[in-house]
Protein backbone atom coordinates (compact mmCIF):
# COMPACT_ATOMS: atom_id res chain seq x y z
CA UNK A 1 0.00 0.00 0.00
CA UNK A 2 1.26 3.47 -0.83
CA UNK A 3 -0.02 6.70 0.69
CA UNK A 4 -1.28 9.34 -1.75
CA UNK A 5 1.11 12.21 -2.29
CA UNK A 6 -1.27 14.61 -0.53
CA UNK A 7 -0.93 12.61 2.71
CA UNK A 8 2.85 12.96 2.58
CA UNK A 9 2.44 16.68 1.85
CA UNK A 10 0.27 16.98 4.98
CA UNK A 11 2.81 14.95 6.93
CA UNK A 12 5.56 17.39 5.97
CA UNK A 13 3.33 20.36 6.81
CA UNK A 14 2.38 18.85 10.16
CA UNK A 15 -1.31 19.13 9.30
CA UNK A 16 -2.15 15.43 9.20
CA UNK A 17 -4.92 14.63 11.73
CA UNK A 18 -3.49 12.89 14.78
CA UNK A 19 -5.41 9.64 14.24
CA UNK A 20 -4.12 9.34 10.66
CA UNK A 21 -0.63 10.09 11.85
CA UNK A 22 -0.89 7.50 14.60
CA UNK A 23 -2.10 4.85 12.13
CA UNK A 24 0.80 5.72 9.88
CA UNK A 25 3.31 5.46 12.71
CA UNK A 26 1.95 2.08 13.79
CA UNK A 27 1.89 0.62 10.28
CA UNK A 28 4.81 -0.68 8.32
CA UNK A 29 6.40 1.92 6.14
CA UNK A 30 5.25 1.79 2.54
CA UNK A 31 8.10 1.12 0.13
CA UNK A 32 7.75 4.32 -1.87
CA UNK A 33 7.40 6.65 1.12
CA UNK A 34 10.92 7.99 1.11
CA UNK A 35 10.86 8.73 -2.62
CA UNK A 36 7.55 10.58 -2.29
CA UNK A 37 8.87 12.45 0.74
CA UNK A 38 11.98 13.55 -1.11
CA UNK A 39 9.95 14.61 -4.13
CA UNK A 40 7.65 16.70 -1.88
CA UNK A 41 10.71 18.40 -0.38
CA UNK A 42 12.17 18.89 -3.86
CA UNK A 43 9.11 20.89 -4.85
CA UNK A 44 9.58 23.22 -1.89
CA UNK A 45 13.20 24.30 -2.18
CA UNK A 46 14.10 27.45 -4.10
CA UNK A 47 16.91 25.78 -6.10
CA UNK A 48 17.19 22.97 -8.64
CA UNK A 49 19.89 20.66 -7.26
CA UNK A 50 18.57 17.16 -6.78
CA UNK A 51 17.94 16.16 -3.15
CA UNK A 52 19.63 12.90 -2.23
CA UNK A 53 19.13 12.79 1.53
CA UNK A 54 17.42 15.28 3.84
CA UNK A 55 19.42 15.70 7.05
CA UNK A 56 17.05 18.00 8.93
CA UNK A 57 14.36 20.61 8.30
CA UNK A 58 16.77 22.99 6.64
CA UNK A 59 19.76 20.87 5.67
CA UNK A 60 19.92 18.46 2.78
CA UNK A 61 22.52 16.47 0.91
CA UNK A 62 22.10 17.28 -2.78
CA UNK A 63 23.69 16.44 -6.10
CA UNK A 64 24.89 19.53 -7.92
CA UNK A 65 24.80 19.89 -11.73
CA UNK A 66 28.54 19.10 -11.81
CA UNK A 67 27.77 15.78 -10.02
CA UNK A 68 29.21 16.73 -6.64
CA UNK A 69 27.39 15.60 -3.49
CA UNK A 70 27.25 18.52 -1.10
CA UNK A 71 25.44 19.59 2.03
CA UNK A 72 23.15 22.47 1.25
CA UNK A 73 20.78 24.55 3.31
CA UNK A 74 17.25 25.27 2.22
CA UNK A 75 18.35 28.89 2.10
CA UNK A 76 20.78 27.90 -0.67
CA UNK A 77 24.15 27.95 1.13
CA UNK A 78 26.58 25.31 -0.14
CA UNK A 79 28.52 23.81 2.79
CA UNK A 80 30.78 21.74 0.53
CA UNK A 81 31.42 18.02 0.30
CA UNK A 82 28.85 16.03 2.27
CA UNK A 83 31.59 14.10 4.09
CA UNK A 84 32.98 17.27 5.59
CA UNK A 85 31.39 18.60 8.75
CA UNK A 86 29.05 21.32 7.49
CA UNK A 87 29.23 23.13 10.84
CA UNK A 88 32.75 24.28 10.04
CA UNK A 89 31.29 26.55 7.35
CA UNK A 90 28.33 27.80 9.39
CA UNK A 91 27.92 30.81 11.63
CA UNK A 92 28.01 30.06 15.32
CA UNK A 93 26.76 31.71 18.47
CA UNK A 94 27.73 30.05 21.73
CA UNK A 95 25.76 30.59 24.92
CA UNK A 96 28.39 30.25 27.61
CA UNK A 97 27.24 32.59 30.37
CA UNK A 98 24.32 32.77 32.79
CA UNK A 99 23.19 35.97 31.12
CA UNK A 100 22.94 34.34 27.69
CA UNK A 101 21.23 31.24 29.11
CA UNK A 102 18.64 33.41 30.81
CA UNK A 103 17.57 34.80 27.45
CA UNK A 104 16.12 31.35 26.83
CA UNK A 105 15.36 29.89 30.23
CA UNK A 106 13.92 31.29 33.45
CA UNK A 107 16.56 31.58 36.17
CA UNK A 108 17.41 28.18 37.68
CA UNK A 109 16.07 26.35 34.63
CA UNK A 110 18.93 26.77 32.22
CA UNK A 111 22.12 24.75 32.36
CA UNK A 112 25.18 25.90 34.27
CA UNK A 113 27.46 27.18 31.48
CA UNK A 114 30.53 25.95 33.35
CA UNK A 115 29.18 22.43 32.79
CA UNK A 116 27.38 22.78 29.49
CA UNK A 117 27.13 25.38 26.78
CA UNK A 118 24.74 25.74 23.86
CA UNK A 119 26.18 26.16 20.40
CA UNK A 120 23.76 27.58 17.87
CA UNK A 121 24.63 27.10 14.22
CA UNK A 122 23.13 29.42 11.61
CA UNK A 123 22.94 29.33 7.85
CA UNK A 124 25.20 32.12 6.51
CA UNK A 125 22.74 32.81 3.68
CA UNK A 126 19.41 32.94 5.49
CA UNK A 127 20.36 33.12 9.20
CA UNK A 128 18.08 30.16 9.82
CA UNK A 129 18.88 28.13 12.92
CA UNK A 130 20.22 24.83 11.60
CA UNK A 131 21.22 23.03 14.74
CA UNK A 132 21.88 23.49 18.43
CA UNK A 133 24.41 21.45 20.32
CA UNK A 134 24.29 21.05 24.07
CA UNK A 135 27.88 20.16 24.87
CA UNK A 136 30.49 20.30 27.62
CA UNK A 137 32.49 23.53 27.31
CA UNK A 138 35.10 23.51 24.56
CA UNK A 139 34.33 20.03 23.29
CA UNK A 140 35.76 19.47 19.82
CA UNK A 141 33.43 18.91 16.91
CA UNK A 142 34.94 16.69 14.27
CA UNK A 143 32.31 14.20 13.25
CA UNK A 144 28.75 14.88 12.18
CA UNK A 145 27.38 11.80 10.42
CA UNK A 146 27.00 8.46 12.19
CA UNK A 147 28.94 5.66 10.52
CA UNK A 148 26.08 3.77 8.86
CA UNK A 149 24.52 6.64 6.84
CA UNK A 150 28.04 7.71 5.95
CA UNK A 151 28.76 4.29 4.46
CA UNK A 152 25.45 4.30 2.60
CA UNK A 153 26.27 7.65 1.12
CA UNK A 154 29.67 6.46 0.02
CA UNK A 155 27.80 3.69 -1.77
CA UNK A 156 25.75 6.38 -3.50
CA UNK A 157 28.91 8.09 -4.64
CA UNK A 158 30.34 4.85 -6.02
CA UNK A 159 27.23 3.68 -7.84
CA UNK A 160 25.91 7.09 -8.79
CA UNK A 161 22.42 5.96 -7.78
CA UNK A 162 20.17 7.93 -5.47
CA UNK A 163 20.12 6.47 -1.98
CA UNK A 164 16.53 5.39 -2.21
CA UNK A 165 16.74 3.27 -5.35
CA UNK A 166 19.23 0.55 -4.69
CA UNK A 167 21.79 -0.45 -2.19
CA UNK A 168 24.08 -3.39 -1.95
CA UNK A 169 23.30 -5.95 0.67
CA UNK A 170 26.38 -6.31 2.83
CA UNK A 171 25.80 -10.00 3.45
CA UNK A 172 25.02 -11.27 -0.02
CA UNK A 173 26.48 -8.62 -2.29
CA UNK A 174 23.16 -8.56 -4.12
CA UNK A 175 21.75 -5.23 -5.15
CA UNK A 176 18.24 -4.83 -3.90
CA UNK A 177 15.56 -2.31 -3.09
CA UNK A 178 16.47 -0.27 -0.04
CA UNK A 179 14.11 -0.94 2.84
CA UNK A 180 12.49 2.34 3.77
CA UNK A 181 12.69 2.06 7.51
CA UNK A 182 15.16 3.49 9.99
CA UNK A 183 16.43 0.09 11.07
CA UNK A 184 17.72 -0.44 7.55
CA UNK A 185 20.07 2.46 8.17
CA UNK A 186 21.44 0.60 11.15
CA UNK A 187 19.43 2.68 13.62
CA UNK A 188 17.92 0.31 16.13
CA UNK A 189 17.74 -3.45 15.73
CA UNK A 190 15.99 -4.91 12.75
CA UNK A 191 13.26 -7.39 13.70
CA UNK A 192 13.94 -10.84 12.34
CA UNK A 193 11.06 -13.26 12.98
CA UNK A 194 13.00 -16.26 11.70
CA UNK A 195 15.91 -15.56 14.04
CA UNK A 196 13.55 -14.99 16.97
CA UNK A 197 11.85 -18.28 16.19
CA UNK A 198 15.17 -20.15 16.05
CA UNK A 199 16.17 -18.60 19.35
CA UNK A 200 12.83 -19.55 20.92
CA UNK A 201 13.26 -23.11 19.66
CA UNK A 202 16.76 -23.44 21.07
CA UNK A 203 15.74 -21.95 24.41
CA UNK A 204 12.78 -24.28 24.53
CA UNK A 205 15.05 -27.31 23.99
CA UNK A 206 17.14 -26.10 26.90
CA UNK A 207 14.02 -25.97 29.04
CA UNK A 208 13.80 -22.18 29.01
CA UNK A 209 10.64 -20.26 28.24
CA UNK A 210 10.69 -17.51 25.67
CA UNK A 211 7.89 -15.17 24.74
CA UNK A 212 7.59 -15.09 21.01
CA UNK A 213 7.80 -11.62 19.54
CA UNK A 214 4.82 -10.16 17.78
CA UNK A 215 5.26 -10.88 14.17
CA UNK A 216 3.43 -9.14 11.36
CA UNK A 217 3.30 -12.27 9.28
CA UNK A 218 0.84 -14.68 10.84
CA UNK A 219 1.96 -17.41 8.48
CA UNK A 220 5.50 -17.14 9.75
CA UNK A 221 4.79 -18.05 13.34
CA UNK A 222 1.80 -19.04 15.39
CA UNK A 223 1.82 -19.51 19.11
CA UNK A 224 -0.94 -21.40 20.84
CA UNK A 225 -1.67 -22.85 24.23
CA UNK A 226 -2.56 -26.52 24.11
CA UNK A 227 -5.19 -28.02 26.44
CA UNK A 228 -2.46 -29.85 28.38
CA UNK A 229 -0.75 -26.59 29.23
CA UNK A 230 2.26 -27.23 27.06
CA UNK A 231 3.08 -24.50 24.67
CA UNK A 232 3.29 -25.40 21.04
CA UNK A 233 4.88 -23.28 18.38
CA UNK A 234 3.64 -23.81 14.90
CA UNK A 235 6.60 -23.08 12.73
CA UNK A 236 6.10 -22.40 9.11
CA UNK A 237 8.84 -23.54 6.87
CA UNK A 238 6.77 -22.75 3.84
CA UNK A 239 9.71 -20.86 2.41
CA UNK A 240 11.54 -24.15 1.90
CA UNK A 241 9.01 -26.93 1.74
CA UNK A 242 5.88 -25.12 0.67
CA UNK A 243 3.83 -26.67 3.47
CA UNK A 244 3.25 -25.99 7.10
CA UNK A 245 4.95 -28.20 9.63
CA UNK A 246 3.97 -28.37 13.23
CA UNK A 247 6.43 -29.10 15.98
CA UNK A 248 5.77 -29.47 19.66
CA UNK A 249 8.17 -28.22 22.26
CA UNK A 250 8.11 -27.66 25.99
CA UNK A 251 7.33 -30.01 28.83
CA UNK A 252 6.19 -32.81 26.54
CA UNK A 253 9.69 -33.28 25.16
Amino acid at each position, binding site marked *: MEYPRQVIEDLVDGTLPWQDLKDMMSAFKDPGRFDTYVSVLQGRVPWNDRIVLPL*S*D*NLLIVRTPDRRLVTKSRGGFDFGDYRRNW*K*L*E*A*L*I*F*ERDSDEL*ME*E*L*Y*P*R*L*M*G*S*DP*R*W*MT*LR*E*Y*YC*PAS*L*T*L*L*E*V*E*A*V*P*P*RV*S*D*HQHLPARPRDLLQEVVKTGNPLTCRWRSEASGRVRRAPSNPSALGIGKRPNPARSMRRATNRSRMGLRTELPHTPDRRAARCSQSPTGTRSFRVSSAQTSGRVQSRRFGQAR
Partner: protein
Amino acid sequence: MTAPWTCRSCPALASYRLNIEDNDLQQLIERGAPIPHSDSDPEDSELLRLLGGRVVRDKRCVHLPTPAGEYDVYVSLLRGGHGLGDVLERKPAAVEADVEEGHLLPRYAERIYGVVPGDPAATQQRRAEIRLRRGERAVPVAQWREQTRNRVLAKDFLYPVKDMYRESMALSERWAGEFRAFWDLPDDFTF
Protein backbone atom coordinates in the same frame (compact mmCIF):
# COMPACT_ATOMS: atom_id res chain seq x y z
CA MET B 1 7.28 25.69 31.41
CA THR B 2 10.60 26.24 29.84
CA ALA B 3 11.64 27.41 26.44
CA PRO B 4 11.99 24.67 23.85
CA TRP B 5 15.32 25.22 22.23
CA THR B 6 17.81 22.59 21.22
CA CYS B 7 17.33 20.87 17.89
CA ARG B 8 19.07 17.57 18.11
CA SER B 9 21.26 17.27 21.14
CA CYS B 10 20.29 16.55 24.70
CA PRO B 11 18.47 19.42 26.34
CA ALA B 12 19.81 21.56 29.07
CA LEU B 13 19.11 20.43 32.60
CA ALA B 14 15.96 22.45 33.20
CA SER B 15 15.51 21.62 36.81
CA TYR B 16 15.91 22.81 40.37
CA ARG B 17 14.77 21.93 43.85
CA LEU B 18 12.74 23.98 46.23
CA ASN B 19 12.08 22.82 49.77
CA ILE B 20 10.24 24.90 52.33
CA GLU B 21 10.40 23.48 55.82
CA ASP B 22 8.71 24.73 58.99
CA ASN B 23 6.33 26.70 56.82
CA ASP B 24 2.91 28.19 57.52
CA LEU B 25 0.90 25.97 55.15
CA GLN B 26 -1.17 24.55 58.00
CA GLN B 27 -2.17 28.04 59.21
CA LEU B 28 -3.05 29.09 55.65
CA ILE B 29 -5.34 26.08 55.29
CA GLU B 30 -6.98 26.70 58.67
CA ARG B 31 -7.58 30.35 57.78
CA GLY B 32 -8.95 29.38 54.37
CA ALA B 33 -6.32 31.61 52.74
CA PRO B 34 -4.90 30.96 49.24
CA ILE B 35 -2.34 28.16 49.11
CA PRO B 36 0.26 27.56 46.38
CA HIS B 37 -0.49 24.94 43.74
CA SER B 38 2.46 25.06 41.42
CA ASP B 39 5.79 26.66 40.79
CA SER B 40 5.33 27.33 37.10
CA ASP B 41 7.57 30.38 36.92
CA PRO B 42 10.67 30.19 39.12
CA GLU B 43 11.29 33.92 38.54
CA ASP B 44 7.92 34.65 40.16
CA SER B 45 7.55 31.70 42.49
CA GLU B 46 4.04 31.19 43.83
CA LEU B 47 5.44 29.01 46.59
CA LEU B 48 7.86 31.66 47.81
CA ARG B 49 5.19 34.33 47.54
CA LEU B 50 2.58 32.50 49.58
CA LEU B 51 4.61 30.42 52.02
CA GLY B 52 6.94 31.58 54.74
CA GLY B 53 9.49 29.15 56.18
CA ARG B 54 13.00 27.80 55.84
CA VAL B 55 13.84 27.76 52.12
CA VAL B 56 16.31 25.57 50.27
CA ARG B 57 16.37 26.51 46.62
CA ASP B 58 19.17 25.60 44.23
CA LYS B 59 20.03 23.66 41.09
CA ARG B 60 20.92 20.46 42.94
CA CYS B 61 18.24 17.96 42.03
CA VAL B 62 19.48 15.10 44.13
CA HIS B 63 17.44 14.51 47.23
CA LEU B 64 19.16 12.47 49.89
CA PRO B 65 16.95 10.85 52.53
CA THR B 66 16.28 13.56 55.09
CA PRO B 67 13.46 13.69 57.61
CA ALA B 68 10.53 15.86 56.58
CA GLY B 69 7.83 17.15 58.86
CA GLU B 70 4.12 17.40 58.28
CA TYR B 71 3.25 20.23 55.86
CA ASP B 72 6.86 20.56 54.69
CA VAL B 73 6.89 21.34 51.00
CA TYR B 74 9.17 19.51 48.66
CA VAL B 75 9.35 20.44 44.99
CA SER B 76 11.63 18.73 42.53
CA LEU B 77 11.28 19.62 38.91
CA LEU B 78 12.75 17.71 36.06
CA ARG B 79 11.71 19.12 32.74
CA GLY B 80 13.02 18.77 29.25
CA GLY B 81 13.84 21.82 27.23
CA HIS B 82 14.36 20.55 23.75
CA GLY B 83 12.50 21.06 20.50
CA LEU B 84 13.09 20.49 16.84
CA GLY B 85 13.79 22.96 14.10
CA ASP B 86 14.13 26.72 13.99
CA VAL B 87 12.00 28.54 16.58
CA LEU B 88 11.20 31.25 14.04
CA GLU B 89 9.53 28.66 11.80
CA ARG B 90 7.06 27.48 14.42
CA LYS B 91 3.55 28.49 13.47
CA PRO B 92 2.41 31.52 15.52
CA ALA B 93 -0.91 29.78 16.27
CA ALA B 94 0.98 26.82 17.76
CA VAL B 95 3.04 29.15 19.97
CA GLU B 96 -0.12 30.91 21.12
CA ALA B 97 -1.67 27.53 21.94
CA ASP B 98 1.43 26.65 23.99
CA VAL B 99 0.96 29.83 26.01
CA GLU B 100 -2.79 29.24 26.41
CA GLU B 101 -2.24 25.69 27.63
CA GLY B 102 0.49 26.73 30.05
CA HIS B 103 3.41 25.02 28.30
CA LEU B 104 5.24 28.27 27.63
CA LEU B 105 5.61 31.34 29.83
CA PRO B 106 4.04 34.27 27.92
CA ARG B 107 7.18 36.45 27.91
CA TYR B 108 9.09 33.77 25.97
CA ALA B 109 6.59 33.75 23.09
CA GLU B 110 7.91 37.07 21.87
CA ARG B 111 11.48 36.83 23.12
CA ILE B 112 12.25 33.44 21.58
CA TYR B 113 9.61 32.73 18.94
CA GLY B 114 9.05 36.33 17.93
CA VAL B 115 5.30 35.84 18.28
CA VAL B 116 3.13 38.80 19.28
CA PRO B 117 -0.19 37.09 20.06
CA GLY B 118 -3.01 38.14 17.77
CA ASP B 119 -0.85 40.49 15.68
CA PRO B 120 0.55 38.86 12.51
CA ALA B 121 2.22 42.09 11.29
CA ALA B 122 4.02 42.63 14.58
CA THR B 123 5.01 38.96 14.62
CA GLN B 124 6.54 39.27 11.17
CA GLN B 125 8.47 42.36 12.19
CA ARG B 126 9.68 40.84 15.47
CA ARG B 127 10.87 37.73 13.67
CA ALA B 128 12.79 39.83 11.15
CA GLU B 129 14.45 41.67 14.05
CA ILE B 130 15.45 38.41 15.73
CA ARG B 131 16.93 37.18 12.44
CA LEU B 132 18.97 40.38 12.11
CA ARG B 133 20.17 40.05 15.69
CA ARG B 134 21.39 36.54 14.90
CA GLY B 135 23.50 37.95 12.11
CA GLU B 136 25.00 40.55 14.45
CA ARG B 137 25.96 38.10 17.16
CA ALA B 138 26.98 34.94 15.27
CA VAL B 139 30.48 34.62 13.84
CA PRO B 140 32.04 32.22 11.32
CA VAL B 141 33.11 29.00 13.01
CA ALA B 142 36.76 29.57 11.98
CA GLN B 143 36.78 32.86 13.89
CA TRP B 144 35.06 31.31 16.90
CA ARG B 145 37.62 28.49 16.93
CA GLU B 146 40.42 31.00 16.97
CA GLN B 147 38.87 32.85 19.93
CA THR B 148 37.94 29.75 21.88
CA ARG B 149 41.30 28.05 21.34
CA ASN B 150 42.90 30.41 23.87
CA ARG B 151 40.49 29.22 26.56
CA VAL B 152 41.45 25.62 25.81
CA LEU B 153 45.15 26.49 25.98
CA ALA B 154 44.55 28.30 29.27
CA LYS B 155 42.77 25.16 30.54
CA ASP B 156 39.96 27.39 31.65
CA PHE B 157 37.64 24.63 32.87
CA LEU B 158 35.70 23.57 35.90
CA TYR B 159 37.65 20.70 37.50
CA PRO B 160 35.17 17.86 36.65
CA VAL B 161 35.16 18.96 33.02
CA LYS B 162 38.95 19.10 33.00
CA ASP B 163 39.01 15.61 34.56
CA MET B 164 36.66 14.36 31.86
CA TYR B 165 38.96 15.62 29.12
CA ARG B 166 42.05 14.26 30.85
CA GLU B 167 40.46 10.81 31.14
CA SER B 168 39.09 10.81 27.59
CA MET B 169 42.48 11.72 26.16
CA ALA B 170 44.18 9.03 28.22
CA LEU B 171 41.62 6.41 27.18
CA SER B 172 41.80 7.01 23.44
CA GLU B 173 44.82 8.17 21.53
CA ARG B 174 42.61 8.69 18.50
CA TRP B 175 40.18 10.92 20.36
CA ALA B 176 43.06 12.87 21.90
CA GLY B 177 44.49 13.37 18.40
CA GLU B 178 41.14 14.64 17.07
CA PHE B 179 40.74 16.99 20.02
CA ARG B 180 44.24 18.43 19.51
CA ALA B 181 43.70 18.73 15.77
CA PHE B 182 40.36 20.50 16.13
CA TRP B 183 41.77 23.14 18.47
CA ASP B 184 45.17 23.22 16.73
CA LEU B 185 46.99 22.31 19.95
CA PRO B 186 50.60 21.16 20.38
CA ASP B 187 51.13 17.39 20.01
CA ASP B 188 51.99 17.00 23.67
CA PHE B 189 48.99 18.95 24.98
CA THR B 190 47.23 17.25 27.91
CA PHE B 191 45.15 18.37 30.86
